[in-house]
């Protein structure tokens, strides 16, 4: 295979102007990666501050609850809209999609550049939270009438951050759905696509349907607060319930926007490190991925079981929310089943995939009580919910993102990382997250509410709260080890071969490491027998 040396050299040389005006999907991916990891880091610092505050009853490091509330607002909002969604649908989607389908770039490269810079504007706006005099203080949910009152800080900041990142997502959706539909190399049929591609498709379909609803909801907030409309004002005939419904109509499907690409990454990692085909490829696509997409719009009411909605919709959505376990169960069977008759190699990315199988199991099962309206009465708004979604989203998805980054690392940087550092980081991570999040489930069951600066009404929880704080510090150390392993690799890493994992997927077999602009030295041609997971086929 001939390699275009000139373009390789051009890819390795650094020029700020080239990065700012880039339309190359891989550079756009790196820009997304830097932005989303920066958000992860800052929001992680906020988590450490909050945990320190909660280590004892009464003021610990700040005596101003308002300060704590802004940390909490930033932590929640940034982790979801500035870290997880952009990392998966920005960073990984950009890097992998064109490479996996044998395309030179995405369908609309300039729209792609617009997407990433809209996202960065959102990040900058979010970071300004810490310097403006009246920062937004309304949690990531932004419920009125609190958020439309005079005491909730700058609600417009929240609205515009959400809108910028929302526009970025919609542009991304248009781009990726078109790319996948129109730019596949000849011979790559729908039945031969990598599962990651299917997952990205599912994820963007959900984004395209539901993001406009969120955009509408937060725009109505701003109109109510600044322009005197009364959508959510009970005194003038409006109701906050409208907002709660609109918000969760997007924000519950948003977890599938995040889950699907994460599952996609894990299918790729698991298939590569077991040298095996994913278990029940077609079943996973039609029942798992598309089933999740189809049901994702019928689950939002479980967030509002105690808000005062009619009984009929509560019962109806109790059932439909429970039923989401069917497609998600199929997704998990596809992942765990891939181990069957495989040849499991315990490299760092695979360890993260295995870690996911366990933390996601806990996260998924602790979600079942949340779907049952009567059971939910006790656990709504408590640390149980926080424990549940830190298992199912925060940590499961972070395992997918970190594992996915280790997996992609040699391709992206052209360097190998240290397995020792990688594994050390993983084991510490795995232990620390369980020590942190499992006690939350217990505290919530006992009645400890979430979003509390202090808990003087529950002094009996102090020892466990302190234990959680120290476990949370361990998570921070684990994250630092991960970061160190990446920096270590950039400085001292050995040169990576084109296909260090022996994968059968196009990005490893056909693209040089690191891939030059245009990705493939010559147009991708595949044989009829080609299969991204054909490890045990004759050829």
């Amino acid at each position, binding site marked *: 295979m001939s390699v275009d040396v000139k373009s390789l050299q051009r890819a390795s040389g650094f020029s700020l102007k080239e990065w700012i005006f880039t339309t190359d999907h891989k550079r756009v991916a790196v820009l997304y990666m830097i932005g989303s990891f920066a958000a992860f880091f800052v929001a992680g610092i906020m988590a450490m501050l909050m945990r320190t505050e909660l280590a004892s009853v009464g003021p610990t490091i700040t005596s101003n609850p308002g300060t704590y*509330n802004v940390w909490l607002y930033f932590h929640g909002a940034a982790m979801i809209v500035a870290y997880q969604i952009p990392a998966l649908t920005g960073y990984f989607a950009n890097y992998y999609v064109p490479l996996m389908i044998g395309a030179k770039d995405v369908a609309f490269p300039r729209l792609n550049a617009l997407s990433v810079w809209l996202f960065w504007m959102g990040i900058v706006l979010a970071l300004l939270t810490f310097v403006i005099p009246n920062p937004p203080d309304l949690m990531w949910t932004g419920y009125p009438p609190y958020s439309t009152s005079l005491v909730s800080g700058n609600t417009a900041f929240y609205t515009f951050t959400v809108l910028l990142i929302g526009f970025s997502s919609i542009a991304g959706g248009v781009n990726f759905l078109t790319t996948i539909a129109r730019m596949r190399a000849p011979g790559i049929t729908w039945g031969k696509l990598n599962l990651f591609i299917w997952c990205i498709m599912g994820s963007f379909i959900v984004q395209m349907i539901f993001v406009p609803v969120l955009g509408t909801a937060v725009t109505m907030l701003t109109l109510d607060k600044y322009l005197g409309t009364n959508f959510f004002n009970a005194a003038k005939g409006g109701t906050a319930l409208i907002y709660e419904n609109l918000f969760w109509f997007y924000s519950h499907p948003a977890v599938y926007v995040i889950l699907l690409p994460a599952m996609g990454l894990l299918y790729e990692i698991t298939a590569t490190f077991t040298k*095996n085909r994913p278990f029940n490829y077609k079943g996973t696509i039609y029942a798992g991925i598309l089933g999740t997409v189809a049901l994702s719009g019928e689950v939002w009411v479980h967030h509002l079981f105690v808000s005062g909605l009619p009984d009929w919709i509560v019962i109806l959505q109790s059932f439909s929310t429970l039923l989401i*376990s069917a497609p998600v169960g199929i997704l998990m069977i596809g992942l765990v089943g891939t181990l069957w008759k495989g040849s499991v190699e315990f490299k760092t990315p695979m360890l993260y995939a295995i870690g996911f199988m366990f933390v996601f*199991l806990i996260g998924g099962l602790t979600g*079942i009580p949340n779907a049952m309206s009567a059971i939910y009465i006790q656990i709504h708004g408590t640390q149980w919910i926080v424990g549940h979604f830190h298992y199912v989203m925060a940590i499961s998805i972070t395992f997918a993102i970190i594992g996915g980054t280790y997996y992609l690392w040699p391709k992206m940087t052209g360097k190998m990382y240290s397995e020792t550092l990688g594994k050390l980081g993983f084991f510490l991570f795995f232990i620390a997250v369980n020590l942190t999040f499992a006690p939350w489930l217990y505290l919530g069951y006992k009645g400890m509410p979430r979003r*509390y600066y202090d808990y003087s*009404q529950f002094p009996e929880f102090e020892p466990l709260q302190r234990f959680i704080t120290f476990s949370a510090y361990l998570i921070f150390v684990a994250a630092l080890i991960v970061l160190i392993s990446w920096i270590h690799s950039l400085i001292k890493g050995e040169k990576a071969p084109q296909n260090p994992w022996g994968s059968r997927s196009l990005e490893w077999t056909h693209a040089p490491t690191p891939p030059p602009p245009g990705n493939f030295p010559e147009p991708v041609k595949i044989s009829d027998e080609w299969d991204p997971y054909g490890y045990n086929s004759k050829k």
Partner: protein
Amino acid sequence: MKKRLLPLVLSAGLYPSPVLAEITPPHRGWEELWKELMIDIGVIGLVFAAVTIYLLVRYRRKRPQEVGSAPKLSPIAALGWVLIPMFVFMADDIFMGLKNWDLWDIYRDVPEEAYTVDIETFMWGYTVRYPEGITTRNELRVPVGRPVYVRLTSRDVIHTFFAPAFRVKWDALPGKVQGLWFYPEKTGEYVFTCTEYCGLLHSKMFGKILVMEEDRFSQWISDKMAQRGIPAEKVEKANLTQGGRT
């Protein structure tokens, strides 16, 4: 678990509606269903985890150049691996969903004989109005052994009334009156607190429930009424027996 599912499948359509012979306190129903649910998800979790660990050990790489040997599933096998797990998950879901429906009815059907209080929430506290015309702040006194119906509304933003010991919680919305009921079986002091973010002092928005002996409670009520100068006969008896849902 399979044993429990079988009668469900056989009796589909004949599922009996709950008959409340006597009052089931919501918290008892909750604890019972919670226990069953923990066993249910515990069993599923252990099966999944055990299978995962078995596969990881059984199929670990033994030779460097080894590749996996899983065959492509035949269309029938692929369909089976979708339909059978889905059937199992959905059967369990529906089984749990029906039990939940029964419990939900208990939570939502306020007993006729409930003692009714009105609570107005505000930033950051609770004003409790008793049917006898007296009020307390951040303190709810109730007689033991009698259902209590709490009607909630809010003066400003969304708040919540959450009493963990009684497993009850409901939102208080401005411009709306809605409620919950609970059944104090033992005298004592219990916490209620807010769980919907409401600003600066959200975590300081809490109060206590004092469950008292019937006679001590009546004594407290009449003392309070005398203090406020409310003549006892002016309090309509009807107030004491208010029930029904809002």
